[in-house]
């Protein structure tokens, strides 16, 4: 990677003039950043605030007043009194031609457009009056590359902007790199047998043109909704509700939970449940396991190393591929959407008197690796997959827009009763949330009372690696919270030195946790993720039900579970792990 500094100003305040309008800027900041902040509209495809400046797409063109040259605003730095024109006839003409070259035959090649779904890219190029049909681009003679069953790369749409490569490098996986030369330049994949994709989908959340994208389940969901014999259940992950509004330019962090429930009913889902309820089940199972480990340790038993969370399939794939020696330390609890899906296809089906084989569960997730997880055969029970299909936040935006459902302006409605959830389930979306939820319940399990203060700030926030200690009675529990693979390695080195340095570790693949996940709306920036996180904690603090063990739906489920044979109970609550080969 070209070590070009990120877009950081010197701190000195200057005034620049964009189309004659005075704008505050920091000296050295790029004009593109200043312009976007001030509401000006400049197309850009290779600029992302968290990644290096590449200046390769050549669409963010502007002119400096009094000079004839056209320059890229992503490389033009603010200086006192700089006067810039953003859409002179020359600028408009040149940027449109470069976009015609980039999107030469985009319309014909995009499966989303071909299948009649709303496409963010199509809307964008239409906005700039770019045809997307003028040129037939060079064919790199490569097939669509599948990343497991999570994501895929489509060489026909790739514009070699390098953003996926850089984010993959940033999080610490380095699975992607540009390959080929000239008009055949596209993203390629690391051939090293010791390197593999963890399906986190960060590449898909940083692709500006839907070339690296989730493997679509839109058609399958549409078919299920059309089928009168199917009972289609929808459940949304915690992270969806404070981010989906971004698809309609609603500020990140805005809670659209109630509007979402209404939208699901408009789309024709039969039951609206929630992954948050599943997160409460996970908390119960995971806290129980943690409590057992802690008691064993405190009684002088042999406990080697901390317990790790396992609800992030990206992290699990990381462990199964890179560090299979850790697998015995991962909690055996299933992940939230699998837990709740199991509950709905067993407990709820029995309660409602419906044939579980007719139930189709659709999870709406901020994640691409949840698609991968949903295909695991070892998670099946009674010959059923718990979750049938997974849509990302982006896919749901596309589906709603295709159906002309104006989400932000819908009336709110409630989740169906069996989807009742706690604030603890909700904060699973943020890095540290699983830890905080599990501690709330483990504390209760160990002491018989709730923590005096439920908020546990030391594990909150966007930092990639956090540490904290919590007092339970006269004991101290040491915990670690890690986001992104690059932060796992230092922690593992520390654990190798002293296996008992930590009791419990939460690991998430994505920056900021699921809320910054690979299935989230574009642009997925650190600043946006922070706002989404704040939105989640705000909802939690406003709720009265804030612990998993107090959730009435979960209590009812566990009462029912007690009546089930041991094998079934195991199948519904626990999972296993196994070493994975490259590509598995």
């Amino acid at each position: 990677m070209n070590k070009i500094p990120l877009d950081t100003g010197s701190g000195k305040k200057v005034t620049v003039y964009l189309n004659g309008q005075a704008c505050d800027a920091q000296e050295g900041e790029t004009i593109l950043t200043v312009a976007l902040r001030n509401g000006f509209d400049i197309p850009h495809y290779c600029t992302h605030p968290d990644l290096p400046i590449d200046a390769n797409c050549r669409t963010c063109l502007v002119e400096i007043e009094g000079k004839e040259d056209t320059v890229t605003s992503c490389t033009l730095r603010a200086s006192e009194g700089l006067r810039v024109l953003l859409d002179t006839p020359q600028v408009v003409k040149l940027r449109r031609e470069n976009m015609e070259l980039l999107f030469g035959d985009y319309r014909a090649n995009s499966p989303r457009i071909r299948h009649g779904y709303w496409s963010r890219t199509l809307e964008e190029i239409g906005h700039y009056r770019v045809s997307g049909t003028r040129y037939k681009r060079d064919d790199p003679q490569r097939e669509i590359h599948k990343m497991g069953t999570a994501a895929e790369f489509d060489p026909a749409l790739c514009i070699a902007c390098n953003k996926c490569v850089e984010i993959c490098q940033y999080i610490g996986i380095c699975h992607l790199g540009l390959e080929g030369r000239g008009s055949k330049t596209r993203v390629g994949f690391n051939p090293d047998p010791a390197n593999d994709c963890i399906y986190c989908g960060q590449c898909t959340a940083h692709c500006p043109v839907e070339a690296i994208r989730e493997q679509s389940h839109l058609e399958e969901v549409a078919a299920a909704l059309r089928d009168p014999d199917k009972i289609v259940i929808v459940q949304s992950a915690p992270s969806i509700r404070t981010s989906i509004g971004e698809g309609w330019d609603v500020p990140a962090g805005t809670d659209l939970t109630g509007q979402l429930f209404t939208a699901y009913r408009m789309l024709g889902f039969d039951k609206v449940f929630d992954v948050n309820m599943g997160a409460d089940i996970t908390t119960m199972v995971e806290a129980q396991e943690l409590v057992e480990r802690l008691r064993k340790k405190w009684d002088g038993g042999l406990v080697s190393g901390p317990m790790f969370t396992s609800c992030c399939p990206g992290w699990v794939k990381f462990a199964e591929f890179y560090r299979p020696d850790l697998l015995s330390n991962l909690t055996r609890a299933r992940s939230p959407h699998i837990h709740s899906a199991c509950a709905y296809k067993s407990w709820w089906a029995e309660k409602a008197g419906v044939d579980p084989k007719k139930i189709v569960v659709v999870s709406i997730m901020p994640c691409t690796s949840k698609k991968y997880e949903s295909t695991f055969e070892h998670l099946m029970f009674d010959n059923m997959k718990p979750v049938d299909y997974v849509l990302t936040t982006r896919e749901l935006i596309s589906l709603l827009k295709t159906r002309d459902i104006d989400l932000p302006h819908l009336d709110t409605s409630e989740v169906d009763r069996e989807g009742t959830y706690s604030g603890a389930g909700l904060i699973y979306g943020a890095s540290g949330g699983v830890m905080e939820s599990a501690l709330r319940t483990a504390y209760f399990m160990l002491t018989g009372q709730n923590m005096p203060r439920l908020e546990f700030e030391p594990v909150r926030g966007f930092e990639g690696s956090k540490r904290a200690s919590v007092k339970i009675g006269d004991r101290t529990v040491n915990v670690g919270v890690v986001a992104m693979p690059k932060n796992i390695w230092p922690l593992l080195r520390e654990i190798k030195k002293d296996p008992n340095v930590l009791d419990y570790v939460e690991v998430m693949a994505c920056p900021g946790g699921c809320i910054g996940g690979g299935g989230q709306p574009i642009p997925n920036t650190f600043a946006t993720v922070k706002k989404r996180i704040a939105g989640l904690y705000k909802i939690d603090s406003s709720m009265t039900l804030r612990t998993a063990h107090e959730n009435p739906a979960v209590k009812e489920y566990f009462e029912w579970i007690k009546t089930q044979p041991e094998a079934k109970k195991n199948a519904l609550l626990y999972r296993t792990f196994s070493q994975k080969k490259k590509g598995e």
Partner: protein
Amino acid sequence: MADLILKLQKANIIGRGGAEYPAHKKWEAVRNALNQSSKGPGLGYVICNASEHEPAVSKDHFILEHHADKLFEGMKLAIKETGAREGIFSLNAKYYATMKTDLDARIAAAKKDGFSMRIVEATSYIGGEETALLNAIEGRRCEPRLKPPFPTQQGLHGAPTLIHNVETLYDIALVAEGTYDDKRFYTVSGAIPHPGIYRLPVTLTALQILEQTENVPQQEFFAQLGGGASGTVFDQQQLAHETVHGAGSVVVHLLKENPRELLLAWLNFFHKESCGKCTPCREGTYQLVRLLEDHKRIPWKKMQPILEVLEKTSFCALGRSVPIPVLSYYRNVLKKS
């Protein structure tokens, strides 16, 4: 170093890779960067750009073959004066294949004299662009870097780096020993009887060069000056006034040559050599080739918007120079005939 910088300025030594940037300015920039470097001197690099991939230019090959003594003198001088830790030859891989024994021996000899030198093979046209060359040496994708920082400030591995073309280092050696005589190497080729490399005064017009080398064709002709791909095309009359810039080539074409084929030769070259980094060059050169292949008559109107973005919005000089031969050929030759 100050002495030599002054001599370079007085002799008006300019970069012979094609960009014609004054050599003394590069030296000054490197000196300033070394002075400002917290790591102190002795950490910079000198790179001899011997990537030579421009069609119809082979003067660097000629110097390597016949004047390697002078070239190595220039390299040693640059290393000594700048206190560089290493001198690197970024060498056209095809050249290295035929000169390996000689060059390896020279590098071994230089090592005995206390000069650390090595050869890195260059395999592409863009590999001659100085920041792409740095990326290639560092094992990165061979594509140009964003400037600033310039190589003189943060070049190879982030250290101040002096990059000179083969001929420039040769000239510097001559300046140091006081024998520089305002001449340069010309590669003369095309529809002529005596193609070759000639060292002649820099002030000559293209026509004078053809006359002095007995290369003026009998039939009507035109010529491309400065580079066999990126050079500018002039008609017979203009050649009487034009001196030769860039990489110093004179390529003679007969007027009867097929225009479409000539354009295709240039555009195929640029398309093949585009690194793929920026949109106009990666996509545009391909579309230009396609347009020509798909049309029997040259589709000037359809080519025009692509040529315009290449000229005005390309990331580096490779893309920006694509329209130069095409449009100068149209303006100076086709439109007139």
